[in-house]
């Protein structure tokens, strides 16, 4: 029964390596977090499943000719998928709150301190034996602090593809953990009095302003930071599609079927980077640690900036909304609202936090452009 021997040899049992078992457990953990804990399920679900498939011995999902190989090459190696996601996100974003109160852009700027401080930290980690991060690696890791999935995947695919799996997993995991990471920092840096501040209602923003806004953002990006135009350009394309009102059928497809299809494939392709040899390294531990630090620093910088602005404006700004500057839309804004309500039952900060929240998306896209221009 030679066939039986071949069949046995073709079972995975004879070929499993410990690393693969561990990575499949990591994939299962991501599925658990997505399904049972509800952590960013739209991404962590396909990433987790992709991680499991990738690590099956003999199945060849990521070998040339394998399904995940094709999806990765077509969608992520090319940079196309994160840009299409960004287009869809643009078509779902309402900049009304930000246009009504453009000063909020400063909060979106301040929170990017998490990115650049982490870049410094990642390089400093090199003093520990076992770490060997180049400036490109450090930049790709630092973008986790941008709290924006497609930006992180896009930058990692350009600067440090080998770390892409760990970076994407860290980015989405910490985005899901925002309700746990942010509140203690927000409370530590604000007084109860500050948290109780109610903010004036936002003015009405006309359709025309909303339509011209993405064009203005695009124009400035073109002038000052062309390296950010892939990200910002596709984002503004989606947003203009939504706001201009004449291509509704395209806008709806971009927000629904197209982004769903791309999300499925993007998740699987990111999961395909969770192979044992690339993920089970001390560097991954470093990335996870740095990611947490990045979120913390970004939150703190946003809150402190808001605090400063609150002082300067005579207390018309609740410092809590600075925390939303990290982006993580709309989770961070909801967290701000919740912490605000805890301090003052009549304090609805959601709309006010949406301004810094979407400003944070622009801020991290700009930061990504800076890193691409200077390090890429």
């Amino acid at each position, binding site marked *: 029964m030679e066939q039986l021997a071949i069949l046995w040899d073709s079972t995975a049992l004879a070929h499993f390596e410990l690393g693969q078992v561990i990575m499949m457990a990591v994939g299962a953990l991501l599925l658990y977090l997505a399904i049972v804990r509800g952590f960013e399920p739209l991404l962590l679900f396909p990433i987790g499943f992709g991680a499991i498939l990738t690590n099956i011995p003999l199945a060849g999902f990521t070998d040339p000719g394998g399904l995940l190989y094709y999806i990765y090459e077509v969608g992520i190696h090319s940079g196309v998928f994160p840009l299409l996601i960004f287009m869809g996100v643009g078509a779902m974003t309402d900049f009304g709150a*930000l*246009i009504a109160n*453009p*000063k909020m*852009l*400063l909060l*979106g*700027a*301040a929170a*990017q*301190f998490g*990115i*650049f*401080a982490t*870049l*410094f930290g*990642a*390089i*400093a980690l*090199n*003093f520990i034996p076992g770490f*060997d991060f180049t*400036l490109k690696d*450090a*930049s790709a890791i630092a973008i986790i602090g941008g709290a924006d999935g497609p930006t992180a995947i896009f930058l990692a695919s350009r600067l440090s593809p080998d770390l892409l799996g760990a970076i994407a997993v860290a980015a989405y995991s910490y985005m899901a953990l925002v309700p746990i990471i942010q509140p203690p920092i927000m409370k530590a840096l604000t007084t109860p009095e500050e948290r109780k501040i109610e903010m004036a209602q936002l003015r009405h923003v*006309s*359709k*025309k*302003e909303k*339509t*011209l*806004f993405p064009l*203005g*953002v695009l124009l*400035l990006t073109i002038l*000052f*930071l062309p390296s950010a135009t892939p990200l910002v350009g596709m984002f503004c394309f989606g947003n203009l599609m939504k706001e201009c*009102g*004449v291509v509704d059928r395209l806008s709806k497809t971009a927000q629904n079927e197209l982004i769903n299809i791309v999300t499925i494939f993007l998740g699987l392709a990111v999961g395909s980077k969770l192979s044992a040899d690339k993920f089970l390294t001390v560097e991954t531990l470093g990335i996870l640690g740095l990611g947490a630090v990045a979120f913390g620093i970004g939150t703190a910088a946003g809150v402190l900036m808001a605090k400063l602005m609150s002082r300067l404006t005579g207390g018309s700004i609740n410092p809590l909304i600075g925390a939303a500057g990290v982006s993580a839309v709309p989770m961070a804004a909801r967290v701000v609202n919740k912490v605000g309500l805890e301090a003052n039952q009549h304090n609805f900060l959601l709309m006010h936090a949406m301004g810094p929240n979407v*400003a944070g998306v*622009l*801020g991290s896209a*700009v*930061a990504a452009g*800076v*890193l691409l221009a*200077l*390090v890429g």
Partner: protein
Amino acid sequence: MSAQSINDLLFEAATLLMVGMGFVFVFLTILIAAVNLLKAFCERFPGQEPQAPTRASSKAARPAQANEDKNIVAAITAAVHAHRQANR
């Protein structure tokens, strides 16, 4: 990696930190100015808006079917109410 080369990298990282944060702040500050200009522009030239409004209003009319019409609002209120009752 030698301590020397790490120090070099650290120096580069520090520069990146300053240049990067500086650029982000400058860029978004310019954007603040741009939004304020935009607001001024839209207030000054609402003249072109007659066209936009028609489009906008025809667009707005769509939600209007659902939102503004009193009958509909009443019906939806009833629906939501009933839904909550059912869910409890």
